[in-house]
């Protein structure tokens, strides 16, 4: 940590000496241990030793950024010169600000040290569990890793934040096979801070493996109809992330494309939808502590009971738009659970889909999208029927938020977000 602090200090001195009015330096060491499984067997063990230094400087409202891996003194000098030259070339923009609070802080979170032997045993156990309990699953790739991180953030005002953090990450890509028949591939991911539980218990991993096994036989939906789609937490997260990016972000508001520009205090989602951006929530693993502008992140509520409370604005965009910056701009989404279990929500669906993955074009700035429903099942008269193929859903994500009829009582915590299932009414579903 001392080397990182000294590197930041040296870089800031160079930037200030070079004319920077304000400057930031971030330095890190990351050690990664990673086991890979390919086509069902262990194939690779990697250890990575990475360092990085990122510099930002403001000169008369002109911003430059430069980053590199090396922390050697000669390279730090070169990087600082690069950063200053970039800033000098930029256009002045008074909306650029960095924190200048002269604060100190030391943060420790997660699993800082890697238990390599236990990590391998948990990996092996997961592979064997899948083979035993889900015999039709072929593990295309399984990546299980641990990152141990030391980071220092420092700025020209004297602020220094240090952080030691670490986490285990489980990432699976698989499909189910029976003779010549095969399901679509599916990915399950989770992050955790200990090895106390078998990996199969993380997130929705067990349910997702079981669902994919039932997706070998598929049928296209016949014709086109308007129905209810029940989104799994992963797909609901996609909907929320696109809504935040297209409607509530500084970029969308500045571009003038956000339909929510005048909607603070108004309903933008169904009652019962409460969304927080919460990097400090205990269920989020190693949420970011410091913003890109050097401010400490705090949790906040973006949508409360369907009503928009504000926007997701950095200080830069807040200044551009003459609005208040938000307490953070992270994608650490936490959505409150509702009153009914997902199974009961599905029982109330006359005709629609249980959507496990959407493969689709990026929604347009206005929210229009069409996508193929992958890893999805037809729902008829409250029952989950066949898995579907060649079936598309079309709509607008802004309308979909308003058409949510229920969010599930249970939420899925995968370390990155906390999300329930959500059912959405009046969605166009089209088959062959």
């Amino acid at each position: 940590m001392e080397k990182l602090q000294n590197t930041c200090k040296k870089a800031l001195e160079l930037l200030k000496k070079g004319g920077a009015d304000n400057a930031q330096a971030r330095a890190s060491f990351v050690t990664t241990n990673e086991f890979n499984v390919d086509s069902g067997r262990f194939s690779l063990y990697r250890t990575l030793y990475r360092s990085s230094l990122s510099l930002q400087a403001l000169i008369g409202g002109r911003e430059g950024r430069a980053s590199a891996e090396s922390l050697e003194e000669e390279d730090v000098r070169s990087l600082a010169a690069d950063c200053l030259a970039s800033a000098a070339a930029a256009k002045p923009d008074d909306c650029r600000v960095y924190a200048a609070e002269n604060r100190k802080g030391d943060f420790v979170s997660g699993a800082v040290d890697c238990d390599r032997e236990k990590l391998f045993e948990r990996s092996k156990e997961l592979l064997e569990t899948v083979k035993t309990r889900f015999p039709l699953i072929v593990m295309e790739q399984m990546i299980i890793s641990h990152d141990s991180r030391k980071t220092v953030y420092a700025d020209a005002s004297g602020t220094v934040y240090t952080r030691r953090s670490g986490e285990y990450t489980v990432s699976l890509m698989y499909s189910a096979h029976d003779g010549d028949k095969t399901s679509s591939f599916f990915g399950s991911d989770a992050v955790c801070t200990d090895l106390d539980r078998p990996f199969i218990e993380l997130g929705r991993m067990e349910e997702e493996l079981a669902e994919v096994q039932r997706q070998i036989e598929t049928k296209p939906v016949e014709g086109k109809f308007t129905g209810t789609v029940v989104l799994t937490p992963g797909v609901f997260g996609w909907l929320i992330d696109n809504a935040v990016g297209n409607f509530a972000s500084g970029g969308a508001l500045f571009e003038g494309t956000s339909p929510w520009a005048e909607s603070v205090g108004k309903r933008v989602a169904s009652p019962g939808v409460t969304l927080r951006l919460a990097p400090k929530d205990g269920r989020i693993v190693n949420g970011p502590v410091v913003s890109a502008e050097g401010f400490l992140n705090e949790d906040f509520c973006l949508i409360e009971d369907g009503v928009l409370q504000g926007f997701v604005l950095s200080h830069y965009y807040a200044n551009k738009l003459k609005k208040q910056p938000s307490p953070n701009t992270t994608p650490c989404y936490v959505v409150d659970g509702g009153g009914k279990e997902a199974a009961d929500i599905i029982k109330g669906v006359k005709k629609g889909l249980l959507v496990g993955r959407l493969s689709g074009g990026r929604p347009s700035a206005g929210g229009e999208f069409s996508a193929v429903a992958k890893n999805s099942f037809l729902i008829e008269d409250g029952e989950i029927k066949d898995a579907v193929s060649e079936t598309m859903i079309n709509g607008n994500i802004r309308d979909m938020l308003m058409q949510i009829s229920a969010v599930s009582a249970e939420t899925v915590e995968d370390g990155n977000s906390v999300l329930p299932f959500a059912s959405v009414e009046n969605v166009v579903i089209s088959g062959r």
Partner: protein
Amino acid sequence: MDKDMLYGCKSAFIPGAHVELRAQKNRQRAVTLLKGDVVHNARSQSGGVCARVYKDGVWGFSSLAETSAEAAKSVIDAATGNAVFLDDRTGYGLPPIPGAAYARVEHFAPPKDAPQKLYIDFLSELDAYIEKHCPRLLSRAVMAVEDSMEKLLLTSDGAEGHNIIPRSYVYLSLTAEHESGTPVDLTLPIGGFGCFEDNFASPEGLYPQVDELYSQLLQKAEGVHADAGEKLCVLGGMMSGMLAHEAVGHTVEADLVLAGSVAAGKIGQVVASPLVSLTDFANTAFGETAPLPVYLDDEGIEAKDAPLIKDGVLVGYMNNRESARHFGMEPLGNARAFAFSDEPLVRMRNTAVHPGDSSLEDMIASVDDGYYLTSSNNGQADTTGEFMFGVCMGYEIKKGRLGKALLDTTISGIAFNMLKTVDMVGDKLTWVSSGMCGKKQPMPVGMGGPALRCRVMIGGR
């Protein structure tokens, strides 16, 4: 990077083991102007050294963010230790990795490095032209990106290489308002292989593309939703290139074949119309340098073209050394790594459908009721060959003539079914190389194709 330093580390290789030692430097320069403001202005680089060691069926790998003899020896030791750790716990006992013909390949020229001011001045002038000549815009963004990947490679069976792939692009992104009040947008990447100064002499050179993109956007601003369902379509060259990459290319990557992709067991079978041939080109295609030429892969295999479909018949997969041994095929240089801290994976290089003999005009004239789809903003496919592409520009075809522009939509299908419906193939090839293919690691790739007439599912209202 210092070749002599790296090559001097061969003495640290463990006798009898297959070892790959690579030093690599990736560089990126990027500037974005949003409505005239510089919202992104950054220079970055990463570099270091890595080693990969094979032992009885498993690999050990290690990387360090330094490029020195000491660092090289350190990663060889660590990678060896990792291979031993995994071998002790798995005991697969597989045979040694197949050797390869001696290859010494050098395609390196020091990359130019334009100062950030050049990018900002270039974009400012371009942005001023857009602001003046495109009055109906809701928003505009221009972005310049240059990235390069320089690699030095040494393998225990004698391959030596020093290569660089620089590429640079300007992205134009324009947004207008549809008559319904919703925003519509279009983005156009311009550029290709080479440093920024090589590809972009002056902003004026891009004004015709700005005018054309603006014209298309105004058509889209009066656009209509596609009629959902299976339709007869003419896919433009960009779309067929994406089809070549996403819907076919990934299913014939040998690691995905081993995981059970739809192409498993189909070598020699008819998977497309006899009009369709498809190849993953290494460095030269149809007599010209391919968009992102690869001469040596990161396992030390000299790169050659990989024929995938010939006259509608599946004829090959893309392999690394291990998978080539499994399938009894020749490795053709498809094992590529993105960063110094990445191991080689089976990747595409420049994947294209071969051009045919139909003119685009004849193809459009032959459609009574369908669509001409020209641009895509993304695409995905899975191992079943079921694909989806976002369509961000297209037109109705009514009685052989182009009609109204389309709003954003999606097409989908199952590749080996859809390719059998191809009954006309255009005579002009279009390449795209601005994107990154995603597969554990990103990777710059080229994709290309001619116009194709086929039946495909289209989304809509």
